[in-house]
């Protein structure tokens, strides 16, 4: 046992000195998660859209000012539709609301908002006397979409009020027997699916974490080959230490390095990137299981190769393919028919487990599957590594 700890500590010291642990286990996952968040919009908690408005005092006071006060938008008064078109075209504003006669003041019973994201070719929001025209910038599709929704919602509310007033003016005889009408349709929302989803930040950190975990573990396992090539493995095997213990130490080194890397990643990703991992006990179980699974899988792959380079190459291929198919980079739904293969990757079960945790569910199934990878992989790897070393 003492020899195992000695080999383990020596390996960890080497990994720290050559920077492997810091680069693969912490810097790369965090850096890539940060970039992915940036590119895919995960970092945008607030809309922070830049809107302009021409006219529309009621719409401005009722809708836009409260949003501005809440910090979701920045609002500017624009003198004319032409100026708004120019500002949106140059990207100075994301969208400009241009009022015709106010819908509330207009006789029109419908007021519809629409938008064309191409600046300079806007469509009027309403064909009636009152209208809201949304002029959008091509560079801000999300902000333009939100602007359009705001205008449509406002117009719909106006329509509802106008309809109610019309009915009231027409007198009770114009009102149909409400009891004869069917019950109004209730909109219900099943929140279980959305609750089971990881937020973008956590998703990317978790995905990159599990992706690079395989590389961290890979370097430890491939270290057996490096030691064999340098002669240090022969020297260790010539020492009075059982051979099985030497190989076990190498695999435990992979497990320990993986656990340290994931732990650091989880701890620092909260304050740095705003990742929310869920119940610590469940996360700990999932992380332990996925690290064991990664070690087993990478070790087995290594035993089918002859050199450190071959091992690293094949392990990289397996880690990358499993990462993609397992949903470490993007949702498996985007993979079409290939999504079915995700279920045979540890990545998939780790991400599933985190989603289950978020939904308040149990991680028993993902943890069991992940441990299954380890239970199959680690003994096979130990047996094959022992034979390889003595051959």
């Amino acid at each position, binding site marked *: 046992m*003492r*020899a195992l700890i*000695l080999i383990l500590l*020596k390996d960890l*010291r*080497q990994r720290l*000195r*050559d920077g492997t642990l810091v680069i693969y286990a912490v810097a790369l996952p965090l850096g890539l998660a940060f970039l992915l968040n940036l590119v895919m919009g995960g970092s945008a908690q607030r809309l922070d859209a830049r809107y302009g408005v021409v006219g529309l005092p009621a719409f401005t006071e009722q809708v836009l000012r409260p949003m501005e006060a809440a910090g979701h938008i920045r609002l500017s008064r624009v003198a004319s539709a032409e100026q708004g078109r120019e500002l949106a075209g140059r990207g100075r504003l994301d969208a400009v609301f241009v009022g015709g006669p106010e819908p509330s003041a207009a006789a029109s019973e419908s007021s519809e908002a629409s938008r064309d994201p191409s600046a300079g070719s806007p469509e009027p929001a309403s064909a009636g006397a009152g209208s809201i025209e949304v002029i959008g910038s091509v560079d801000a599709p999300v902000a333009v979409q939100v602007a359009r929704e705001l205008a449509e919602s406002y117009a719909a509310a106006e329509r509802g009020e106008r309809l109610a007033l019309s009915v009231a003016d027409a007198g009770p005889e114009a009102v149909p027997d409400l009891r004869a009408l069917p019950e109004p349709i209730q909109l219900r929302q099943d929140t279980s699916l959305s609750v089971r989803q990881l937020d973008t930040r956590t998703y990317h950190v978790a995905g990159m974490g599990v992706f690079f975990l395989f590389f961290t573990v890979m370097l430890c396992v491939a270290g057996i080959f490096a030691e064999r090539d*340098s*002669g*240090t493995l*022969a*020297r*260790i*095997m*010539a*020492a*009075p*230490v*059982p*051979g099985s213990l030497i190989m076990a130490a190498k695999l435990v080194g992979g497990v320990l390095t993986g656990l340290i890397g994931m732990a650091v990643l989880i701890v620092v990703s909260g304050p740095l990137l705003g990742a929310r991992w869920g119940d610590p006990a469940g996360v700990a179980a999932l992380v332990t299981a996925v690290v064991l699974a990664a070690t087993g899988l990478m070790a087995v792959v290594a035993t089918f190769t002859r050199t450190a380079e071959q091992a690293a190459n094949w392990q990289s291929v397996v880690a990358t393919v499993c990462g993609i198919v397992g949903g470490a980079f993007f949702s498996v739904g985007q993979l079409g028919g290939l999504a079915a293969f995700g279920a045979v990757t540890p990545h998939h079960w780790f991400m599933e487990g985190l989603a289950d945790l978020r939904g308040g569910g149990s991680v028993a199934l993902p943890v069991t599957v992940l441990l299954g990878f380890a239970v199959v992989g680690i003994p096979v790897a130990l047996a094959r590594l022992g034979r390889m070393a*003595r*051959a």
Partner: protein
Amino acid sequence: MPVLEVTGLRKSYKDRLAVDDVGFAVGEGETYGLLGPNGAGKTTTISMVVGVLARDAGEVRIDGRPHDTASTSTKSVIGYVPQELALYPDLTARENLRFFAGLYGMRGGEARRRIEEVLTTVGLADRAGEAVGKYSGGMSRRLNIGIGLLNRPRLLVLDEPTAGVDPQSRTAILDNVRSLACDGIAVLYTTHYMEEAERLCDRVGIIDGGRMLAEGSPRELGAPDLEAAFLQLTGRALRD
């Protein structure tokens, strides 16, 4: 009773016979040279002797006790210096020694004392805190040998320990080996340099094609022109 006794050793890789019926013995204080061209089977023989490689047939005894890849008690009395520089370049010389001392069960003050002794013996005491990656070839060779001495071995196995070192380091290494033999350690030594074998070895065995071709003292085998005898036995054809 010899410290090392090898009989009928055999090892094959798939259909290639690497070592075939090799036998020899090394007594206390004796230096035995295993000589042979590249690919003759020297390193394979040594790997089986130190218990790193499983043999197909034959027997290895250390102080009369059977010895194989799983024999931890006999491994503890063998010092092994492989042909490669089996060192960790990211670690310092002292850290390298501490790691291997730990594997041989040394700890605490005993380990510290022995490490300093070895560092002094191989002339690296003043550079012990430097990463081995910064060492010259000669310094690395000396440290490589030093690790083999850590456990005060009964049998020291050196596989081409002077390959690629300068004359100063080579002289220092040979002096060390000679003095270790004088202290009663049995030494098994492989080399390509015939003059080294003549100077150092009490007996030599010439091996080629996995078989022992001749065995005896350097004088019996042709010294002072051991090289001529070697070429006569192994031929002049170039080896891979």
